[in-house]
C-alpha cells in the first residue's frame, strides 16, 4: 500500500466493529482490528462491544503505540517491521480516528443500538447506563431496555442495527429517532445474503421515513476473512454445540471482516450517501479516552491542607517515633529525595490513602504489611506501611517511582487473610460504593481450556481433548508443542488433531470473561461509574469495574492492592498468644529489629539446619533443601533465599553459580563487554548478588545497561513479562536483548541465560522489593518458631488452611521441638487450639476445630458448659465424676448433661466421641461412641429435661472388643487428620521387616542402598519435569526420594496411587548434607492401611467394587500433589 494509493482511498470508517471482548462473539483482538483498519486505509474505527467497554482501552492503547511507532506493543507481526511501512503506519495512525462505545443488546427485544459518546458527559452517560444494566443482572449479564437508553440520550450518537426481520424495525426506529433527534443513524450492511439490495432499499426508505441517516457498516466480527473458522468455533462454544451440528447458527460466509474502503464503496453503489455518512459520523465524536480526567479522592487530607503538605507533615511527625534516637543522615537524605519526587509526580494523595487504610487496619488490630516498588521507600517505613528499615537494610529502591516511567506507584498491602474482608468493607464505607470499585481480571483462554473447548466444538471426544489438555504440566504457555501431543499418546500429524491444536493456539489469549481482581481498588473523588461501568461480582456484596490492571495503568488511574496473606493471620495470632501467656508485647517492627543482630543468632542457626516447617515461604521441599546450602546468616540472605527458588533464576540457571560463589568455590566476577564499553558496567547492578542476576529488577537493568535497551523498550519488556504471556509479545524482545548483549561483547551464553530468566519471571515474577517484604515475614515467623514454638504451632493450626503442611506435620514438628501437645477433650478444649500452662512451660491443647465436620457453635456451647461446670465445681464437689467401671451401656449422666445443657444434637456428641474427646469422662472412643448412639437425636427442650432421662431403658453392658492402637490411630487420622497416640508406620513397622526408618535412612552414608517405607506426604513434578520428588514420612521423620522421569513409566501406578510407599534406592548425600534417596524400585503398600484398621475384606480384588465407604478409603489425609 503506497502513499499514492492511500490518498486516492475514499473516506470510509467501519463503525460497527466487535472485538473478542464481546465474549464468544467477536473473533479478533481489539489491537488487530485497529491495525487492520489502518492497513486497509480506513480513516477511523468504531469499536462497540456487546454491553461492555472492557476492550476499548486495549484498542486505544494499541493506537497510541502505533502512533509512537511501537509496532511490537500493538501486536504487529514481523513482516510489518519494514521502516518505510512503519513510517506509513505511523503517519496513518496519527490521523486515524478511533471512537469507543458499546453495542447495547436489549433484553426487551428492541434492535441493537451502537452508542458512541460525543463528549466526556456522553461517556459518563454510557458508563452509568452500562452500570445500571450490569447491576440489575446476574454476574456477567446486562439487563437493559430501550427505555433505559432513551431516558437520557444527551451527548450520545446512536446507530440502530437492523434485526433479521425488517418488519420489527419500523416502530422502535421511530421511537429512537423521536427521542434523539439528529443523533440517530441507521446501520445498513451488505453481507452477500442474496437479498442485500432489497434490504438496502427498504432500509433507505425506513431511514427517510424516520428522518435518520443511513450509515454503511459491515458489522465486523473479525479483522480478516481468515478468522472465519475461529469465529465458527467460538460460536459453537457459545451455543454449546459442535460445528457439524451448529448448522445455520454459523455465518453462511466470511464477509464480516474489515473490507477495504473501495470494496465498501462498490457494495454500496446504490447508496453512496451511506458511505459518506461514516465520515460525518466521525466528525460528531469529540470524545477520546485520554479525556478521562481522573481525580484522586481527598478524604485522608484534613480541611485546609493540600495532600503534599499533609504527607510531609505526617512524615516529619512520625519520623520521631520511628527513630527515637534521631534520624540518620542516610534516612534524612532518602526522605528528602522521595518527598521531592512525590511532589513532582503529584502522588501524595496516593500515599495518604494507603496510609489511611493501614492506619485503619492498625486501629482494628489487623496485621498488615506493604510491598511493591513504592512500598520499600523510607516514606512508607516512616508511615508504618512496611517494617523493613531502610537504615538497617541495604536495599536498592531502584524500582521506586521514576520520573520517566510516568506510571503510578505500586503499593500492595497484605492483610491477615481472615480479616481482609473487614478492610474491604471499610474502604467501601469510607469512599462509598459509588466511588470505590475493585478492578477486573480478564480471564483468558489458556492452552488447557482452549484445547478443551475447541476440541468439544470440533466434535473430538472428551477423551482426546482431555489427553492433549492433560499433557500440559502448566496452564500457561504460548502454544501447544507437538511434543506434548506426542506425550499424550496422540499423533501430532493427524489432520483432525492438528486442526484442533491450530485453532486452539489461535484461541489462546482470547478473553473468556471478566472476574474480579484479588484486591485492586480504584478510588475516585467523584462518581466511579462516570469513568467506567461497574458490575456485580460472583461474591455477594462485591462489585467490580470493567477494566483490568493494564487498562488502569494505560489510563493512569491509581490502584491500591488490598491482598490477603495467611501468614499475617498466623503471626498476629501467635503474637496475641504470647502477649496473653507471657505478657510480652511484640509487633512486626519490634521483631524485625532483631534481624540484624550479630551472627550466630539462634533464628538463623535454626534456619540453616533446614528446620523451617511452618515458616513463611521457606517451608517447601525445595526451600528446605536450599537452606543448608545458602546458610542464611543475615537479613539480606533471606531476601535472596526467598527469590532464588523461583522459576526465573532456575530457568536462567543462575542458582548454582550463585551458590558456588557464595560458598567461595567460584570467583566472583562480573561479565564485561568489549571495549569501548565500560568493563565494570554490570558491577553496580549485580554487586549485591555476587555477579549473578537473581531479581527481576536486575534482569531489567541488565537489559538496559548491557543490551542498551531504551527506557521505552525496557518498559515494554517489563510489561510483556508481567502481563499474560498469551499476549505473545515477550519473544520479540529475545533477539533484541541477546543480540544487543552479544554485539556489546558479552558472552552469548550469559545473554541467553539472562533472557531465559526473564522468561521464567514471566510466569512468576519476583522483584527484589517483594522479596524484601516477604523476607521480613520469613524472619518474623522463624523468630516465633524459634523462641515460641508452642504459640507458633498453635497459631499455625488456628490459621489453617495455609502453607505447605497439614496439622499432622505441624504438630509432629512442634513435638520434635519440645512442645507438649494435649488431645482434644470435651472438658478442656475450645474451638481454637489453645495454650495451657504445663510443667515445662506452655502446652498446646488441640481444639474442636481440628475435628472434621465440627461446628463452631457447638464448640462455643461446650465452652460455656465448661465454665458453668467450673463455677459449680468451685462452689461444691466436682460434678465431672472420676472414671468408674461402667456397668451400663446407657450414656453416662455427664454426657447427657452435656447434651442437654449445651443443647447439642446427637451428631455433635458422636463427632466428639469419634475424636476420642470423652477421656475425661472415663470413656474411650469405642465406649463413648457405643453409648452415644443411644442419645436422643436433639437436645430436649428444658421443659422436658426431667422426663427425658428416664425414657432410656437400662441396657445391659455388652462387651465390645478392645480397640487396638492401630484402630485408634486410624480413627484419629480420620477424624482429626493427626494422631497423638502414634504414627501409622510405627504400628505397621512389624509388617515391614528389613525396611529402614526415615531417621536411619537420613544417617546412611552416601552411595548406600536403602529400603524405606512411609506415608506419602507430597509428590511433586517441577516444571522441568525430569524428576519426580516424593516425600515419605514415618514415626521418625521424613525422607525425600527422587525418581527419574524415565522410570515413571514402570512405576507410574505406584508413584501416582500409593498412600504408603516402599522405596528401595541409593542414598545421595550432598556436600551440604542434603540427603536424597534415588529411587530404583517402588512398591505400593497402601494395602497396609487396612491392616492398621483391622478391616476385614473378602471377595477377591473385585470386592472393592462393593466395599465402597468413602471414609474408609481415606484413612490418611491425601498427599499434597503438585503437577
Amino acid at each position, binding site marked *: 500500500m503506497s502513499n499514492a494509493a492511500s490518498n486516492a482511498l475514499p473516506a470510509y470508517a467501519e463503525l460497527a466493529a466487535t472485538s473478542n471482548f464481546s465474549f464468544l462473539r467477536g473473533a479478533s483482538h481489539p489491537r488487530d482490528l485497529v491495525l487492520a483498519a489502518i492497513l486497509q486505509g480506513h480513516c477511523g474505527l468504531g469499536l462497540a462491544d456487546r454491553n461492555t467497554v472492557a476492550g476499548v482501552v486495549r484498542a486505544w492503547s494499541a493506537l497510541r503505540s502505533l502512533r509512537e511507532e511501537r509496532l511490537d506493543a500493538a501486536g504487529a507481526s514481523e513482516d510489518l517491521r519494514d521502516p518505510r511501512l512503519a513510517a506509513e503506519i505511523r503517519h496513518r495512525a496519527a490521523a486515524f480516528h478511533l471512537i469507543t462505545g458499546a453495542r447495547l443488546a436489549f433484553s426487551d427485544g428492541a434492535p441493537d443500538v451502537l452508542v458512541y459518546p460525543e463528549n466526556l458527559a456522553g461517556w459518563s452517560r454510557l458508563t452509568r447506563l452500562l452500570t445500571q444494566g450490569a447491576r440489575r443482572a446476574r454476574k456477567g449479564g446486562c439487563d437493559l431496555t430501550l427505555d433505559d437508553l432513551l431516558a437520557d440520550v444527551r451527548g450520545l450518537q446512536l446507530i440502530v442495527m437492523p434485526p433479521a426481520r425488517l418488519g420489527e424495525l419500523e416502530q422502535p426506529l421511530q421511537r429512537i429517532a423521536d427521542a434523539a433527534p439528529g443523533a440517530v443513524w441507521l446501520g445498513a450492511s451488505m453481507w452477500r445474503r442474496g437479498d442485500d439490495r432489497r434490504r438496502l432499499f427498504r432500509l433507505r426508505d425506513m431511514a427517510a421515513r424516520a428522518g435518520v441517516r443511513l450509515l454503511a457498516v459491515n458489522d465486523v466480527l473479525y479483522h480478516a476473512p481468515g478468522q472465519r473458522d475461529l469465529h465458527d468455533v467460538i460460536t459453537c462454544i457459545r451455543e454449546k454445540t459442535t460445528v457439524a451440528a451448529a448448522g*445455520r447458527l454459523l455465518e453462511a460466509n466470511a464477509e464480516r471482516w474489515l473490507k477495504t474502503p473501495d470494496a465498501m464503496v462498490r457494495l454500496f453503489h446504490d447508496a453512496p450517501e451511506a458511505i459518506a455518512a461514516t465520515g460525518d459520523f466521525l466528525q460528531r465524536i469529540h470524545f477520546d479516552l485520554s479525556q478521562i480526567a481522573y481525580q484522586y479522592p481527598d478524604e485522608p487530607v484534613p480541611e485546609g491542607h493540600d495532600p503534599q503538605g499533609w504527607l510531609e507533615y505526617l512524615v516529619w511527625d512520625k519520623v520521631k517515633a520511628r527513630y527515637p534516637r534521631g534520624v540518620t543522615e542516610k534516612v534524612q537524605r532518602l526522605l528528602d529525595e522521595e518527598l521531592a519526587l512525590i511532589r513532582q509526580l503529584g502522588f501524595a494523595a496516593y500515599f495518604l490513602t494507603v496510609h489511611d487504610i493501614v492506619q485503619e487496619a492498625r486501629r482494628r488490630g489487623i496485621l498488615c504489611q506493604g510491598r511493591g516498588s513504592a512500598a520499600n521507600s523510607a516514606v512508607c517505613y516512616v508511615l508504618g506501611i512496611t517494617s523493613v528499615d531502610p537504615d538497617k537494610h541495604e536495599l536498592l529502591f531502584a524500582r521506586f517511582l521514576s520520573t520517566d516511567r510516568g506510571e503510578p506507584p505500586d503499593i500492595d498491602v497484605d492483610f491477615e487473610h481472615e480479616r481482609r474482608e473487614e478492610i474491604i468493607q471499610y474502604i467501601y464505607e469510607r469512599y462509598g460504593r459509588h466511588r470505590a470499585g475493585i478492578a477486573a481480571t480478564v480471564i483468558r483462554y489458556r492452552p488447557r481450556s482452549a484445547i478443551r473447548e475447541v476440541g468439544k466444538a470440533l466434535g473430538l471426544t472428551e477423551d482426546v481433548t482431555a489427553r492433549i489438555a492433560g499433557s500440559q504440566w502448566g496452564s500457561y504457555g504460548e502454544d501447544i508443542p507437538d511434543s506434548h501431543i506426542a506425550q499424550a499418546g496422540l499423533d501430532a500429524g493427524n489432520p483432525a488433531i492438528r486442526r484442533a491444536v491450530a485453532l486452539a493456539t489461535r484461541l489462546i489469549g482470547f478473553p473468556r470473561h471478566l472476574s474480579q481482581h484479588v484486591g485492586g481498588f480504584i478510588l475516585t473523588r467523584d462518581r466511579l461509574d462516570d469513568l467506567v461501568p461497574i458490575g456485580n461480582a460472583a461474591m455477594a456484596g462485591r462489585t467490580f469495574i470493567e477494566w483490568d490492571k493494564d487498562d488502569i495503568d494505560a489510563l493512569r488511574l491509581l490502584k491500591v492492592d488490598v491482598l490477603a496473606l495467611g501468614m499475617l493471620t498466623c503471626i498476629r495470632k501467635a503474637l496475641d498468644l504470647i502477649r496473653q501467656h507471657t505478657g510480652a508485647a511484640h509487633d512486626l517492627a519490634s521483631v524485625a529489629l532483631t534481624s540484624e543482630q550479630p551472627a550466630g543468632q539462634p533464628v538463623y542457626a535454626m534456619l540453616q539446619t533446614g528446620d523451617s516447617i511452618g515458616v513463611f515461604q521457606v517451608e517447601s521441599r525445595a526451600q528446605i533443601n536450599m537452606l543448608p546450602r545458602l546458610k542464611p546468616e543475615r537479613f539480606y540472605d533471606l531476601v535472596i533465599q526467598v527469590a532464588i527458588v523461583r522459576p526465573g533464576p532456575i530457568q536462567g540457571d543462575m542458582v548454582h553459580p550463585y551458590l558456588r560463589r557464595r560458598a567461595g568455590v567460584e570467583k566472583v566476577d562480573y561479565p564485561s563487554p568489549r571495549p569501548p564499553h565500560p568493563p565494570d558496567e554490570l558491577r553496580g547492578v549485580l554487586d549485591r548478588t555476587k555477579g549473578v542476576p537473581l531479581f527481576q529488577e536486575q534482569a531489567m537493568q541488565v537489559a538496559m545497561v548491557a543490551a542498551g535497551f531504551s527506557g521505552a523498550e525496557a518498559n515494554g519488556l517489563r510489561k510483556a513479562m508481567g502481563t499474560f504471556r498469551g499476549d505473545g509479545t515477550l519473544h520479540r524482545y529475545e533477539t533484541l536483548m541477546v543480540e544487543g548483549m552479544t554485539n556489546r561483547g558479552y558472552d552469548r551464553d550469559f545473554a541467553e541465560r539472562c533472557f531465559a530468566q526473564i522468561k521464567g519471571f514471566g510466569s512468576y515474577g519476583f522483584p527484589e522489593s517483594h522479596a524484601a517484604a516477604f523476607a521480613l515475614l520469613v524472619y518474623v515467623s522463624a523468630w516465633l518458631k524459634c523462641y515460641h514454638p508452642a504459640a507458633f504451632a498453635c497459631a499455625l493450626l488456628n490459621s489453617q488452611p495455609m502453607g505447605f503442611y497439614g496439622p499432622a506435620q505441624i504438630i509432629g514438628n512442634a513435638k520434635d521441638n519440645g512442645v507438649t501437645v494435649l488431645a482434644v477433650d470435651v472438658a478442656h478444649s475450645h474451638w481454637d487450639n489453645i495454650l495451657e500452662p504445663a510443667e515445662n512451660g506452655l502446652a498446646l491443647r488441640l481444639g474442636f476445630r481440628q475435628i472434621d465436620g465440627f461446628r463452631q457453635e457447638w464448640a462455643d456451647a461446650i465452652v460455656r458448659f465448661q465454665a458453668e461446670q467450673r463455677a459449680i465445681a468451685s462452689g461444691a464437689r466436682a460434678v465431672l465424676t472420676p472414671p468408674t467401671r461402667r456397668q451400663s451401656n446407657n450414656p453416662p449422666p455427664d454426657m447427657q448433661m452435656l447434651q442437654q445443657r449445651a443443647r447439642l444434637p446427637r451428631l455433635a456428641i458422636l463427632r466428639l466421641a469419634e475424636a476420642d474427646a470423652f477421656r475425661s469422662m472415663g470413656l474411650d472412643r469405642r465406649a463413648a461412641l457405643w453409648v452415644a448412639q443411644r442419645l436422643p437425636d436433639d437436645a430436649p427442650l428444658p421443659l422436658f429435661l426431667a422426663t427425658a432421662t428416664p425414657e432410656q431403658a437400662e441396657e445391659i453392658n455388652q462387651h465390645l472388643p478392645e480397640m487396638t492402637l492401630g484402630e485408634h490411630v486410624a480413627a484419629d487420622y480420620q477424624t482429626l487428620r493427626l494422631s497423638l497416640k502414634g504414627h501409622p508406620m510405627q504400628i505397621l513397622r512389624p509388617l515391614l521387616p528389613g525396611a529402614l526408618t526415615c531417621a536411619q535412612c537420613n544417617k546412611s552414608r552416601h552411595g548406600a542402598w536403602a529400603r524405606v517405607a512411609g506415608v506419602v506426604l507430597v509428590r511433586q513434578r517441577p516444571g522441568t519435569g525430569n524428576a519426580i520428588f516424593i516425600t515419605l514420612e514415618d514415626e521418625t521423620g521424613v525422607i525425600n526420594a527422587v525418581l527419574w522421569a524415565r522410570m515413571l513409566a514402570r512405576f507410574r501406578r505406584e508413584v501416582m496411587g500409593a498412600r504408603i510407599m516402599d522405596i528401595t534406592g541409593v542414598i545421595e548425600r550432598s556436600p551440604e548434607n542434603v540427603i536424597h534417596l534415588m529411587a530404583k524400585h517402588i512398591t505400593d503398600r497402601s494395602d497396609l492401611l487396612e491392616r492398621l484398621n483391622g478391616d476385614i475384606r473378602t471377595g477377591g480384588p473385585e470386592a472393592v467394587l462393593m466395599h465402597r465407604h468413602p471414609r474408609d478409603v481415606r484413612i490418611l489425609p491425601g498427599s499434597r500433589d503438585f503437577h
Partner: protein
Amino acid sequence: MRNERFANAPAGEVAAAFRAADAAYQNDGTLFHGADALHHGARPPRRRYLALWFPFLPADRLRRQAGVSHDAGDIAAGDEDRQAAPPLVFVAPVSGAMRLVAVSPEALAAGLRPQMPLADARALAPALWVVPARPDLDDAFLTRLRDDFGRFTPLLAIDPPHGLVLDITGCAHLAGGEAPMAARVRQRARAAGLHVHCALAATPQAARALARFTLAAREAPLIVPEGGDRAATARLPVAALELPERHYRTLQRAGLKRLADIIDRDSASLASRFGAAFPALLARITGAEDIRITPERPPPPCVIDRILPEPIARQEHVEALLAGLLREAAQRLERAGEGGLRFTALFYRTDGVKRAVTVSVSQPTRDPALVGLLLRERLGALDDPLDPGFGFDQIRLCVDETAPLTAAQSGLPADILPATHIMEAGQESINRLADRLMARLGPEAVLKLCPRGSHLPERAAVLRPARLATAGAGWRDLGPEDPPARPLHLFRTPQPVEAMDAAPDGCPLRFRWRRMMHEVAAAEGPERLSPEWWRALPAAAAPPQGATPTDDANTLRSTRDYYRVEDREGRRFWLFRPDDAGATPRWFIHGLFP
C-alpha cells in the same frame, strides 16, 4: 413351548407358577406376583436361591458389542490375552467432576476404582480407554440376561447393581441337582462373556451377600448346604450388610467387624442404634428368615384374548372379531390415558400353528378403525397370506408399546380454530397416510425430506425413513413478505451454463443452458455461501496440485455466489459462480424455481 420344556416336571410349583402366570396374563394383564400365586401345595419346601453378580457388567457388555466375545467358559484365558488391552473405564459427571463409575478387570488391576476422579485415573494409567457410562444400556443388557436366565427358573429378578437372583426351589433336579444347576447357570453367563460370581443359599440376601463378599463365589458357585447359612455368612465382613455409611462406621468403630460379632447381640440394643429394620435384615442375611423375591416379567401393557368354542376361518369373521378386540383395547387404553404405538394380532390355529402380525403407528392412537385399517393393509400385503387351515380357535390382540395420550376434542368447526391447529391437523393426516403406506410397503420404503442445519443447499435437506422423521421444525425461517430464497427443484449435480456479458462482480445478462439462450430480465444476489471448512480435513482442504478447475464436483467445494435469475419468459433459475481461481468466471445452474 414352555409346556414342552417342563413336560416331565411333576405337578409341582413350577407348573403351578406357570399356570398361575398364564391365568394372570389371560385375566387382566396385571403384574403377576409370585408370592400370591403360591396358595396351594401343602407345605412349601425350604426355598433355595441362586445369586449372580456380574462385577464387570458394563465392561463385559461393551466388549460383547465390540465383538470381542469370548469362547465359552474361557474368560480366565482371555484375561491373560488381554494383558495388553488398555484399561477400560466408564465415566460420568458426579457433582461437576468426571468420575469413574465402572471399571474393567484390567483397570481394576491398574489400581483404578469406581468413584475415582478421571484425572487421577489418568495419572495412574495414561493409556486409558474412557467410555461414557450408559446405565440405561447396562440395565437393558441385564434385563435381557434376566429373560435369558428364565430358562432355568420362572422366578427370578434383577438384583441391582449388576446382579440377578434366581429362585431355583424345585427346579434344581431338572439339571440333575443344585451343583450341576449352579454350574450350568455359571457356564451360561461365562459363555455370554460375563465375569460372574455366584452363590446358592436359603435366602436371597444370604446368597447375594455370599456372591458379592466372598472370594469363594468367584472361581466356582458357592453352594451353602441346607441349614448351613448361618455358619457360612457369619464369616462375612459387616460391609455385607450394605448399611448406610454412618451405621457401617459405627460398627467398625465398635470393633464389630464380622457378622459373627453381631449375630448374637441383643436385638433391642442393635435396633436402637441401627434402626428397627436392622434385626430383620440380619436375620435374612444369615438365612434365619426368608422373604420371597418378586419376579419381574412385565407382560405387554394390554393383552386381550378371544378363545373361540367354534374355530372360525372366514375373513369377515376374523375381521369382525379383530374389530371387537380393538374396541375393547381402545376402552382399556382410554381408561389408562394411553395410546398404542405397536399392535400385534396373534392367530392360533387349531393345529397349533401360530401367526403374528404387527403394525406400528407414528403417533399414539386408540382409534379402532385406524388400527383395523392398518391391520387389514398388513394382512393384505403379507407375502404368504394368512391361511386359516381348519380355522382359528384363539385370537389375541397385544398392544406392545404405549405412550401417554390425552383425550383430544374432535369435531370442532375448522373456522374457529387457529391456523397452527390446521397445520397440525394437516401434519396428522400426512402421518396417517405414512402409517398406511408403511403398513403396506414396509417401514423403510416411505421416506421424508427432513431439514438439516446447513447453509449449503445440497446439504440442507436429507431423506429419512418417515417413521424416524421429526415434524416440520428446523426449516429455514423466512419472513412472510420474503420471496423463497431456495428453488423447489435442485439439481443433484450443478450443470454448467455459458454466461455472457457478466460484470466482474455481477450477474450475466444472458446465458445459454441446454442449448437455449435465456435473456436475463431480473436478477437478485449474490448470496455467497462458503464451504463448510470443518468437513474437509486440513490436508484435503489444500487444493491438490494439478487439479483441473473444470472438475465439476469441485465446484461444490468452493465459495459460491448464487443469483436468483428470471428470464424474459418468466422462467426462474438459480445460478451460481464458484470462486475458483480460473481466469474466466464459470457459471452453473443449480436449481429451478417454480
